[in-house]
């Protein structure tokens, strides 16, 4: 198998090797006024939120805004957090996904309304999205999945979360997660095969 050990939390300045406090503990420390805890949580959880948001939306600046907002909600809810009840990362993933859903719903009608005056505004938007995603066949195929399938597949196969955690994030049963992933992967495979054929015509 591939080396899947690289974790995005190493993205920014690693600190000295010391016993790592749990996310729970850090959130508690932040709620008690410890500014350093916020920095550690940002380094640890920020990349996860950003990674999911970027995959869900396929747009960097939107994903950045979503991550900032998700983390803002984390800071705000810190005093109310009950340690041990759930994982902080589960909570953050859920908030991130919900914000992505909201973002899409907000964006869709606006995008069509504001589309330039062309015969078929919807088609131009789709073209533009495809242009943005052309470099990444998987991204394009993911974007065509129904929302819940897309979420489940991203959490399982890109974020590498176990199914029970995905069930917690999506607030559904593990069986429902498995079903969403299986259907999502079938749809992805079909979409990728179809796209390969299309590219044969389009790009020559």
């Amino acid at each position: 198998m591939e080396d899947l050990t690289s974790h995005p939390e190493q993205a920014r300045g690693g600190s000295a090797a010391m016993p790592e406090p749990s996310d729970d503990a850090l959130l508690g420390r932040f709620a008690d006024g410890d500014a350093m805890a916020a920095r550690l949580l940002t380094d640890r959880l920020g990349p996860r939120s950003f990674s999911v948001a970027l995959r869900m939306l396929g747009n960097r600046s939107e994903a950045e805004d979503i991550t900032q907002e998700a983390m803002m909600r984390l800071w705000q809810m810190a005093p109310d957090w009950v340690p041990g009840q759930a994982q902080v990362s589960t909570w953050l993933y859920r908030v991130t996904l919900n914000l992505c859903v909201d973002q899409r719903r907000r964006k869709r009608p606006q995008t069509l309304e504001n589309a330039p005056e062309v015969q078929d505004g919807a088609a131009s938007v789709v073209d533009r999205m495809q242009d943005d995603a052309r470099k990444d066949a998987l991204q394009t195929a993911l974007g065509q999945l129904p929302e819940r399938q897309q979420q489940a597949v991203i959490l399982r196969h890109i974020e590498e979360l176990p199914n029970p955690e995905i069930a917690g994030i999506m607030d559904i049963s593990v069986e429902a997660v498995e079903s969403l992933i299986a259907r999502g992967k079938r749809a992805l495979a079909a979409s990728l095969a179809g796209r390969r054929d299309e590219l044969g015509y389009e790009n020559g």
Partner: protein
Amino acid sequence: MKMADNDELENLFAQARQERPALPEDLAVRIETDAEAVRLRRLNATGRPARRSWLQAFEGVGGWRVLGGLVAASAAGVWIGFSAPAFLPDPANFIYAQETTFLVADLNLDADFLEAEE
């Protein structure tokens, strides 16, 4: 319907995992700025001082790295103080030298020097 084979899909997932983005530095700064605003607002609202404020002050002046430098410099100073290397004058001499106070007035500059100026 044609299907991409499973290996192809798994390869794409593996590639996507390797391409998971780092947190952009400016986004990290924005997030931490938000956190600080929330933290300060909460502290102001509750009216209690921040726990571990000494630690934050410590981080504010450079943290462990700066402290390490200070410790090294202090240790060097103490060492030099106790055993002055050959190329440095013995600090004890400075102390004794200062004990034999001599004032500018003692130089008796007044007469010749001042006259020369005029």
